């Protein structure tokens, strides 16, 4: 509002600045850092799992610890590592790609991050209070009820509930941003594909995380207040959980992979120096995949015994997903076809995504055949399948995005030599680890069992798989070294567009000023930045005159609300602890008061501040 008077930014300490920031570019970095930490943590767990399985009848760890590790590995990787990494890139790139100064709800954006973060923390502290969750990331009842699982599952239910709420509100923010905040001329069908996949992923989150919230609430009520949802002799139904979980669970895998598709669709055209082949078909395929993803959840439950008709219907529905996915694969190939290809690390990751993902897709179609799934189910074949998608697809997609956007985010490129070492070792290590698991599964090795007898033909292959996982671990170490090394030695980037790329984020100065665009750009075509380079004078035409720029104020309230929810969740878990030192009711009350008290404080109107036009001109000259 024009009445806001505060102009100059107060000097803030660095820590306070990061805790209170509502700037989408800084939140992106927070997401990336938090996601990376969780990724490393869960990766180390994976290495421990592979050490245990390296030789037959290993006693490196007990079955209980093994169960806790596979549960936490899967849960953390999906909810607390890949999701925030995706959100990091979405936060950074989407406002820039649509030519916006910020997201629609900067406050909600920060709130989403902190709630996610504290939810993840709640899950993680389980180790210190009677052990981590141990019923698998799918938390099937009755395994996850109080009868069979310890307090770890309380942390699972409440930690995911809290962090899921953060994810939900962030998704709403992305949807509104993409629909309402596009620059003039940026029609829906001119949006970069990453924005499209971001939009569709966010919509999936809104419709898939809410059933999960309901299911987790049931599990929580069942465990903490002795609800009777899942016990048949009390009138309950154990299959109910499986349905609710997979109604969420299958869309979830597309929630994760669609943004990776989006990144690939940005990186491949940029380094093929060609426009994306079949843009419209790509958008269409994205929407169809999202739509179908809600109709296939029973393929996770073929062996539960729902009946041949249901199984057949869902088997067919599952197979149809191969069609839109195939469209995407061919479009990426045709984009590369005849292009001026540059194989740097980003492009290597993006290009290798394509064959690896195809392998994962093929095993997926194999699994979708209900009768043979009786053989594959719960064997290492499944583990191999989803890791081909998740590591071969999503992780390589994220790495491509990291190498691609790094110069815009941090002002320098990552070292290419180290990048290539990382790529090749990760690529080889990955196939070494997981390809052989297909065969292990086919010859009958079960997943989620902490050891196996020697002499069944498993020994050699497990050893190979474990060696592969160490190679992957080494690749991640190289990545970390690269980040530190490049921070010191890489040449600073001052140009806008170090890759000669195509989309709007490359039209902003590096480093990007707080307000992104001094003047909102006028978009004239798909790949607007490339269009101006070819048909215009190489700069974006402004859609508005220079003027004061309105900015939102930072706020500590998001952090506090996250903290409040953490305390509340912890109090709920304490209800069933043996000797809580503080009465749980007090803890719950404190968390409740903090959370809602902060919301009441937030209802005060805050109009932000303005950066006066002279200041903007000065900044623009400085970076120009």
């Amino acid at each position, binding site marked *: 509002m024009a009445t806001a008077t505060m102009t100059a930014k107060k000097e803030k300490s660095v820590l306070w600045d990061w805790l209170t920031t509502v700037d989408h570019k800084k939140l992106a970095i927070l997401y990336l850092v938090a996601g990376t930490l969780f990724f490393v943590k869960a990766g180390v767990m994976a290495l421990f799992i592979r050490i245990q399985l390296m030789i037959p009848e290993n006693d490196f760890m007990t079955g209980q610890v093994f169960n806790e590790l596979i549960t936490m590995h899967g849960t953390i990787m999906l909810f607390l590592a890949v999701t925030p990494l995706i959100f990091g890139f979405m936060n950074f790139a989407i406002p820039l790609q649509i030519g916006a100064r910020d997201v629609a709800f900067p406050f909600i954006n920060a709130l989403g991050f902190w709630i996610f973060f504290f939810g993840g923390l709640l899950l993680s502290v389980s180790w210190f209070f009677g052990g981590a969750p141990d019923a698998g990331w799918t938390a099937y009842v009755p395994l996850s009820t109080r009868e069979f699982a310890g307090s770890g599952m309380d942390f699972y239910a409440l930690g995911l509930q809290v962090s899921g709420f953060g994810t939900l509100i962030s998704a709403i923010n992305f949807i509104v941003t993409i629909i309402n905040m596009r620059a003039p001329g940026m029609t829906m069908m001119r949006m970069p594909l990453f924005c499209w996949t971001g939009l569709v992923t966010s919509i999936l989150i809104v419709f898939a995380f809410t059933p999960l919230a309901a299911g987790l609430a049931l599990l929580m009520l069942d465990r903490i207040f002795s609800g*009777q949802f899942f016990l048949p002799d009390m009138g309950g*139904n154990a299959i109910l959980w499986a349905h609710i979980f997979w109604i969420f669970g299958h869309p979830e895998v597309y929630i994760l992979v669609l943004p990776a598709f989006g990144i690939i669709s940005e990186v491949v055209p940029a380094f093929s120096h060609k426009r994306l082949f079949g843009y419209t078909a790509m958008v269409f395929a994205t929407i169809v995949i999202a739509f179908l993803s809600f109709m296939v959840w029973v393929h996770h439950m073929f062996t539960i015994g729902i009946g041949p008709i249901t199984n057949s219907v869902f088997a067919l529905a599952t197979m149809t997903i191969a069609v839109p996915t195939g469209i995407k694969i061919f479009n990426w190939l045709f984009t590369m076809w005849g292009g001026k290809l540059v194989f740097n690390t980003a492009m290597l990751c993006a290009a290798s995504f394509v064959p690896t993902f195809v392998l994962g897709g093929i095993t997926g179609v194999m699994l979708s055949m209900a009768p043979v799934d009786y053989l594959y189910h719960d064997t290492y074949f499944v583990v191999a399948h989803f890791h081909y998608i998740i590591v071969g697809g999503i992780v390589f997609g994220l790495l491509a995005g990291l190498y691609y956007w790094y110069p815009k985010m941090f002002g320098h490129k990552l070292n290419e030599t180290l990048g290539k070492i990382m790529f090749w070792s990760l690529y080889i290590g990955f196939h070494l680890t997981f390809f052989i698991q297909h065969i292990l599964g086919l010859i009958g090795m079960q997943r989620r069992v902490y050891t196996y007898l020697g002499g069944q033909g498993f020994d050699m292959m497990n050893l190979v798989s474990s060696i592969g996982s160490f190679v992957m671990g080494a690749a991640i170490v190289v990545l970390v070294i690269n980040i530190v090394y490049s921070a010191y030695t890489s040449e600073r980037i001052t140009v806008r567009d170090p890759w000669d790329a195509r989309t709007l984020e490359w039209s902003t100065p590096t480093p990007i000023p707080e307000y992104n665009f001094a003047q909102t750009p006028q978009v004239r075509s798909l790949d607007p930045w490339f269009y101006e380079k070819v048909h215009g004078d190489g700069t974006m035409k402004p859609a508005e005159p220079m003027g004061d720029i309105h900015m939102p104020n930072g706020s500590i309230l998001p952090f506090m609300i996250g903290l409040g929810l953490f305390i509340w969740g912890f109090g709920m878990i304490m209800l069933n602890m043996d000797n809580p030192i503080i009465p749980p009711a007090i803890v719950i009350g404190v968390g409740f008061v903090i959370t809602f008290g902060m919301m009441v404080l937030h209802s005060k109107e805050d109009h932000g501040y303005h950066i006066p036009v002279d200041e903007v001109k000065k900044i623009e000259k400085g970076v120009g």
Partner: protein
Amino acid sequence: MADHIDVAQGLPANPEKATLEGKNKFLGMWVFLGGETVMFATFFGTFLGLRKGTVGGPTAEDLFSLPLVFIMTMILLTSSLTSVLGILAMKRNNFKTLRTCMLLTVLLGFGFVGFEVYEFYHYYHEGLGYTTSAFASSFYTLVGLHGCHVLFGLGWIITLLARYWNAGGVTLANAPKFYSASLYWHFIDVVWVFIFTVVYLLSVGGA
């Protein structure tokens, strides 16, 4: 940006959507309610799946009395009406009426919660504890969750009323806030209509 709206000539026709901020709130609220719908659908599904699981405890036919639920329905529907009247007043820039209508909505909302507390208390004394059966758990969870939504909505509207009681008029900043709150209130009302049909009518009607 688009938030420079000239209000010298009076408020625009739809003050809740006149600014970009208002438009964002409007859309965001709708998306949020879309998610809430799916969440409630999951609880409805749970109830429908488990409602026959009474394991010898009280059944729906034993407990539910339609007159009580009818009164509750009427109270909640009326509260929705008052909030509509409030929003209509808001569009006419009549802040006093908005205030009064919202206050009425709050009072009716509390009336509804009162009846619900009485209802649960009554069922409990009829022998339907939360842990009695799958039917009991799923019933209390679904209806109780709706009750929590009512309470949250009440807290929301009360906060707005307290914050703006002396604001003196409708502004482009407070209009979207009242509008979102009333949208949420309607949603709660619609959910109740489904609860009335699926939980009470279906059970008492013998389906």
